[in-house]
């Protein structure tokens, strides 16, 4: 697994968003908006700032809060995003043990799965980002998503 993002700070060419939130889904929109705005400031395509980034990041945060941290508000979710003119790298870390991304490959678009109410989160992350992977972290579980700017 690749290492987590380093401690780089924001400057004119690179924007870094770093935030810790309690495991509460009501925080998701605020974090998404912070990252979305920085992508907008780096002239990402409108579809990316209005669709790809918000939906994929909402899924990653939702997974971290509900599955990684089991909706326990005492547990934190750590978000670190690096945005520049080439793209976005965003890492979402929780205090859980994580799960094998490759084992969660069921296709929600098959006739058998289409009417299911769940099972589309990771599918959407993969469809809307260029890369989704787990990264090395000293503790907890970290998922990294990469999106190249259009």
């Amino acid at each position, binding site marked *: 697994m690749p290492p987590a993002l380093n401690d780089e700070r924001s400057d004119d060419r690179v924007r870094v968003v770093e935030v810790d939130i309690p495991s509460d889904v*009501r925080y*998701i*929109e605020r974090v998404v908006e912070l990252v979305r705005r920085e992508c907008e400031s780096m002239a990402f395509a409108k579809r990316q700032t*209005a669709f790809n980034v918000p*939906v994929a990041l909402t899924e990653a945060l*939702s997974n971290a809060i509900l599955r990684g941290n089991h909706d326990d508000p005492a547990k934190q979710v750590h978000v670190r995003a690096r945005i520049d003119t080439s793209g976005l790298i965003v890492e979402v870390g929780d205090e859980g043990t994580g799960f094998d991304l490759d084992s969660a490959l069921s296709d929600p678009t098959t006739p058998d799965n*289409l009417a299911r109410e*769940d099972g*589309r989160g990771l599918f959407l992350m993969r469809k809307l980002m260029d890369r989704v992977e787990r990264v090395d972290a000293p503790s907890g579980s970290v998922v990294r998503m990469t999106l190249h700017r259009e």
Partner: protein
Amino acid sequence: MSFSIKKDGEVVVVDVEGQLIVGNRQELKQKVLDELERGEKKFLIDFSQTGYIDSSGLGVLVSLSKKIREQGGELRLANLNDDLKTLFELTKLDTLFQIADTRERALQSF
């Protein structure tokens, strides 16, 4: 983000303002189920003022569709912007729902 509900003839019309995501999906579900319990059968969800929808929001729409059908009712969706259309196409949920381009067309389709 909020949901407003009003009647247009026999149809319950729900406007989704803002996002439909994990943080507010239950509110939409409860509002529609309350109307269903009151005996309403025809539902239209209008997305003209919607930003984005996540997988939880899609899950609630699937759930409502089933529950409305079980009660002998019908659900239509309308006014999906290009991004939302892409979302429904990616997940193939465009094959599960009856989707109209405009509210008027959706109302006429009942």
